[in-house]
């Protein structure tokens, strides 16, 4: 998960250490962040998740759950 978290931190322009599961995506979660995260998930996990489902995520934990479900 660390490659993924580092990548997500870069996309959201925050420190990776801040990205606890409860981290609220809020305003940072715009269409560009969603698209960048789709590419990151594909690169790190070689799976794709639905763009709509990803856009609906509210926290970092929500993204984690979506990725876990896709990898499983």
């Amino acid at each position, binding site marked *: 998960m660390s490659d993924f978290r580092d990548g997500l931190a870069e996309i959201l322009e925050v420190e990776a250490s801040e990205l606890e599961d409860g981290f609220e995506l809020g305003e940072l979660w715009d269409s*560009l962040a969603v698209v960048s995260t789709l*590419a990151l998930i*594909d690169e790190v996990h070689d799976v794709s998740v639905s763009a709509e489902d990803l856009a609906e995520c509210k926290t970092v934990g929500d993204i984690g759950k979506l990725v876990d479900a896709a990898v499983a």
Partner: protein
Amino acid sequence: MPAHIVAIATHVPETILSNAELADLYPEWPADKILDKTGIAERHIAGPDETALDLGVAAAEKLFERDGIDRGDVDFLIFCTQAPDYVLPTSACIMQDRLQLGTGVGALDINLGCSGFVYGLSLAAGLIAGGMASTILLVTADTYSKYINARDKSVRTLFGDGAAATLIKRNGPGDTGSIGPFEFGTDGSGAHQLIVEGGGFRTPRSVETSEEVVDKSGNVRSRDNLYMNGGAVLNFTLKRVPEVVARLTDKAGLSIEAYDNVILHQANKFMLDSLQKKLGLADDRVPRRYADIGNTVSSTIPFVLEEMAEQSRFPPGRHMLVGFGVGLSWAAGSISF
């Protein structure tokens, strides 16, 4: 395949839209962020009275003049655009007259976007292989700027207007170039992911379709404007492009290493970075051209090819071309010089 690409000329309109101008409209996206994410510094935008047909004519005139091509040799014209001058007649018919081509030519439009050049090339090769034409002018031109809402940064940062004219000829004695094989793909279930909904007959333009709405990312658009679901298009691309590349290498009986370059539709830096990683290709085999023109839809691949020519001649080499986008539609083809 008994045909080859002889020459390519491109044209962009004069007006430039810079990142600094866009950043003034979108305070949350400074100019350096736009450049960093898209790789695009500026795009060219057609004037209010300038259409895709005008851009295409300019590219073709440049081809005739710069490359010393006799327009009288052209016996078929294929025009690929999604921004025709009229509902009817066919823009290619008007282009025949504007270019003063003979009245013995065949002319037709094809309505495809980012996959259009590869499809157009396959049609040209097919017409030549079938003995129906011998010198084909393939013109690609689009003006997506006319569909884009000024306050929609999701697409306004990416697309630029532009045109390319490509001359394809039947091989004569001593010609060694080739066009093909090709592999195609279509998934119309994704039609709504990249669409201008208003203005056709399913959804004629009306007061309702012109109503602007603001999406979650703060982008403004109406149903008469271009809409792109960037996430869905990325997912489609990451799935379909590697697949069609594998189908083409199988069909051609070649490994991907046998291609000097893999020329992808120049969507933007982010998309090309993702695809290049996925395909496992080194930087020097994935040429790029978007920094100064943006995504010119069906003309992006010929813009790359034109830069490969030295004094209007293409150095020997084998290249894979891959187009993908609106439709959803995709295709890959081999060419050699």
